[in-house]
């Protein structure tokens, strides 16, 4: 029994198969399926505990190999399947997959040699626009928006003492309310100001959901310059216009 390398070393079942084939110098067009299936299984068993996240793909290949092995033992069946084309080798699919994988594994290595070649590297200027954009955009931190929402709740809303049946609040209407207030030229409106006119939690919630929806639809841009500060809203400018300017 030879020394077995840990499965972690391989990037996938095909990588392991390729390794086994090359190690034993097997002919890829005439794979001894029984032998390779056994060796493959040795590796799987050698890993000890079965961690489904990592080993799942290896197990799929294992069952495929065992299936292939049993098909190889029953030559009569495969011959009947395709009488005119002669015998189709059941290993053909496997061979094609290994070759395909090998091709890209090598391509990856060629790319790596270019990539890691620091000696002849060409440097480019760093784009500064990207960083700026990340800081301005609020969509990356929902938490800040949520905190603003809690602040609004504390400030404002007392539950109505008598819950009279009232007209249901429509988020679509609230979205229109927000859009109507926003000046078309790109001027800003402070989101918190919407809450001066409302009285119920339901309505506050509707405004908040409306805001999230507008951000999601990319109709509105929300900017919060400091934590817990005012959230400024403005209509979103079409990106291509910005680039042209």
């Amino acid at each position: 029994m030879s020394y077995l390398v840990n499965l972690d070393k391989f990037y996938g079942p095909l990588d392991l198969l390729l390794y086994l084939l090359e190690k034993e110098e097997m002919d890829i067009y005439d794979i001894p399926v029984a032998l390779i299936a056994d060796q493959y299984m040795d590796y799987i068993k050698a890993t000890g505990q079965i961690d489904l996240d990592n080993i799942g793909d290896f197990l799929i290949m294992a069952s495929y190999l065992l299936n292939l092995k049993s098909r190889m033992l029953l030559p009569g069946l495969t011959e009947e399947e395709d009488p005119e084309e002669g015998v189709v080798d059941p290993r053909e699919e496997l061979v094609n997959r290994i070759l395909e994988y090998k091709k890209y594994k090598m391509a990856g290595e060629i790319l790596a040699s270019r990539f890691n070649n620091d000696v002849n590297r060409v440097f480019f200027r760093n784009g500064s626009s990207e960083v700026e954009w990340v800081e301005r955009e609020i969509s990356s931190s929902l938490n800040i928006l949520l905190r603003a929402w809690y602040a609004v709740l504390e400030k404002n809303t007392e539950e109505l003492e008598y819950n009279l049946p009232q007209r249901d609040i429509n988020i679509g209407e609230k979205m229109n309310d927000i859009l109507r207030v926003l000046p078309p030229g790109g001027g800003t409106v402070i989101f918190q100001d919407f809450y001066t006119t409302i009285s119920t939690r339901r309505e506050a919630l509707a405004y908040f959901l409306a805001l999230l929806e507008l951000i999601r639809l990319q109709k509105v841009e929300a900017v919060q310059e400091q934590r817990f500060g005012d959230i400024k809203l403005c209509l979103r400018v079409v990106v291509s216009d910005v680039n042209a300017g």
Partner: protein
Amino acid sequence: MLMRDEIKASIEALLFVSSERISLEELMEILNLAEPDLKQIIKEMMMEYNQSQRGIQILTLDGGYIMGTKPEYAQVVSKMVKPASRRLSPAALETLAIIAYRQPLSKAEIEQIRGVKTDRVITTLMEKGIINEVGKKAAPGKPALYGTTHEFLKLFALSSLDDLPMIQDTE
């Protein structure tokens, strides 16, 4: 109408200011020049940069132009610019190779070739801006199709995808 030298100076200024690739069309519009003239002028500029003792050069990138350092000065520059975050795992490079040569293609197609789940690698490559979504496949579920970006060409010092090293089909 600008003099030829002034045009060259303008192009130099534009390329200097832009950290990203400038397309030929964009230059044509800004400088109000016809395509053959502009191409000829930039070709001359490239030669001038290469012949004289300059640390920078003009490179073609996917049909546009960009300024970059000359490889001879990589060592000097890397003393100032740390190439620390410039590491990609073999799994990432393998995935990137598949995307580069076969684009556009979906995650399922990548996984079919690699035989393993590839979600995390794709996320990393997307975050680094080396690949992006280039469309949706006309198949059930409309899976995203991935392709490489200009950043990919810059990282691997390629002028265009046609410059990718040849890979043989079988041996």
